């Protein structure tokens, strides 16, 4: 290809401009659609507690909290289990098993979210109500976070479903970044007499931490934005949950449940909810970038991912 340099530059600039234009267009149209809600209700409605479209109340606080709580539950489970699985896949599992296990992980990532939601509602919800919630209440009841009846659907189950859904993302990315930690460093550490555990903890994980953070960011993004599966298992109660077992709702579940019939201010408020979700997503990304920057500065060997 004997194109002049200028032509390449022009081509790349055009492609990049299309992308930037799309993002801008998307954000601006979201703002335009949400604007009527802001002009009727001001700004305070975002942090108000009551969602009651019939009486013109569109408080988003319960949904913002629900989104953050379900994501937090999912990540508390996914970080140790995902990292552990990835370490095992990259360093412990016999070589010939790795390919099939890796395929299994990617297969899980390809399952449509609605299928996870149905599985959660039909299979996990009864198990959660009969076994998990009574168990959690008996062990952690003293914290006061597990009051109320065992219902199956609710924050716990939504968090678990999100955990199952983000796990493949975590494992696939973590495994890949762990595996590209330079072998020289691993061998060097072994040669210095480090145990396997020390090598993993002091060389492999620190070496891959920017990549691991990248995986965590993607997983968080998926958990924040997951819609249908959560809507099926969270109980969709538009109140601030007083217990981890309570039914709750998230911003995406609010949008998907109400979009079909919404008109006027309610529709606009739903776009506002989308905007808030976007802001949360951007916030998480910014935090992750800051973390990556700070760890990259202090880190030994780091792999650039994200």
């Amino acid at each position, binding site marked *: 290809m004997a194109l002049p340099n200028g032509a390449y530059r022009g081509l790349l600039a055009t492609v990049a401009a299309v992308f930037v234009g799309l993002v801008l267009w998307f954000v601006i149209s979201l703002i335009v659609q949400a604007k009527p809600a802001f002009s009727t209700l001001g700004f305070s409605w975002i942090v108000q507690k009551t*969602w009651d*479209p*019939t*009486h013109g109340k569109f408080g988003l606080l319960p949904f913002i909290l629900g989104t953050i709580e379900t994501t937090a539950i999912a990540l508390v489970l996914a970080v140790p289990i995902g990292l552990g699985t990835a370490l095992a896949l990259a*360093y*412990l599992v*016999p*070589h010939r098993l790795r390919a099939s296990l890796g395929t299994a992980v990617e297969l899980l*990532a*390809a399952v449509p*979210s*609605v*299928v996870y939601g*149905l599985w959660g*509602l*039909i299979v996990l*919800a009864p198990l959660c*109500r009969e076994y998990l919630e009574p168990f959690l209440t008996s062990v952690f009841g003293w914290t006061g976070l597990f009051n109320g009846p065992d*219902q*199956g*659907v609710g924050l716990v189950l939504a968090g678990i479903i999100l955990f199952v859904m983000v796990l493949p993302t975590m494992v*696939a990315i973590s*495994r*890949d970044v762990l*595996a*590209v930690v330079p*072998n020289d460093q*691993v*061998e060097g550490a072994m040669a210095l007499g480090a145990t396997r555990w020390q*090598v993993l903890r002091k060389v492999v994980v620190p070496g891959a931490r920017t990549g691991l953070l990248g995986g965590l960011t*993607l997983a968080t*993004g*998926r958990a*924040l*934005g*997951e*819609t*249908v599966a959560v*809507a*099926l298992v969270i*109980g*969709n*109660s*538009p*109140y601030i949950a007083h217990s981890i077992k309570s*039914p709750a*709702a998230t911003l*995406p579940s609010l*949008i*998907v*449940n*109400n*979009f*079909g*019939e*919404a*008109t006027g201010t309610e529709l606009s408020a739903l776009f506002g909810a*989308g905007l808030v979700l*976007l802001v949360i*997503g951007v916030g998480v990304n910014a935090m992750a970038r800051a973390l990556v920057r700070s760890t990259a500065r202090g880190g030994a060997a780091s792999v650039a991912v994200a």
Partner: protein
Amino acid sequence: MFVLRSPRVRRTFTSHRYGRGWTSNASYARSHGPAVNIGLEITEVEEPVDSDMTPQADTGPRTRTARLLAVALVAAGALLAACSSSSTPATTTAPIGGTLSSDNAAYLAADLKAPAGTLNASGSTFVTPFFNVAFHDYTAKNQGLQVNYQSVGSGAGITAFQAGTVNFAASDVPMTASDLAKVPAASGPVIQIPDTLGGISVSYNLPGVTKRLKLDGVTVAGIFAGTIKTWNAPEITALNPGVTLPSNAIVPEVRADSSGTTYIFSDYLATVSPAWTLGRSKTIAWPAVAVQSPHNSGVAASIKSTPYSIGYVELAYALQNNFTFASIKNAAGVYVSPSLTSVAADAAQKVNISSTDFSIVNAAGAGSYPIAGYSWAILLQKQTSETTGAGTVKVLDWTVHTGGGQNLAAGIQNVVLPPAIQNQDRTALLTVTGPSGQALLTKS
């Protein structure tokens, strides 16, 4: 095993894996980004839930339900053939819901001769199963006119109608005055006609109780308002002497999405219970104890998997899932179970309805099941095209009449429109004109 390998071998392996990992991650980042693919995901929800249903375990109510269903189907057929009164304990003289006009067949024959083309319509998800079979059958018989019905929800259907992007819309609640104000004035008046009739069951999952529960409107309102909290509350036991009810907490199961089903249910509760303060609306601010699930199918699945729950689901879903549902005390003081017959009996009590006076809940008559309502088709009185205009009125006329689409209703457990309502629909459709003022609905 911690195996150290030669760097060359491992690099090949990892770079391959690395590439694959990114491909799959990028692809789900694309398809699961927040808020981008809402439209797509909504349509995914409903069907798999249905196909995944398994019959309930306790056989007592199931066989009874099956028998009831059989009776209902036979009775619905009898109702059609004879246009006679309902078959449930006929102690009072229930009006028969009218007689079909004698020239019905002549109109239906002409309806099938609509000009070929494609009609676009959108709206209610509730009416979708019926529209699907009815339009499919119409197209097969007419050979050329297709109806492209988008099941996007009543609100979205009304929005599309206001924007003039559809030939007709469908909504579970008629357009209100403020909805109508958003239709461009140049478009002229709007016609709204009932297209289907639905009943709403109060279904429950109550382990250990095999006898069908009896409930009245005030009690149902108390349960869903959260003021009646346990199954053995005095309000419930008083209505069910001889039934041992557990002391477990009641879990009310309600719709998370805005829905015509919720409108009809809350319309009923607001009509019969002075204590009901949550209003009548497509969305209700339910008490915190309620578990909310999207769509009839979601509520149905949640009831099925939650012992001690009670919820309101559209009759067809309750019948298809073999749910145990309560008998509800009607205006005549009789406890009636929901069925195609008892819902038709309720609707037959009110033979004159309009888009501003359409509530049929709690109708008189010993055989009436009191929680029922219509879904509506919406079109412009002055059509902008003679071809699609004729297609629209003919398809709708065929769909809402016995001998046409209504013959397919019972097959999917929908209630047939009372003959008086069918006649009323035709009267309304006869007023629809083409661009030059000529009537579009004709008889052969």
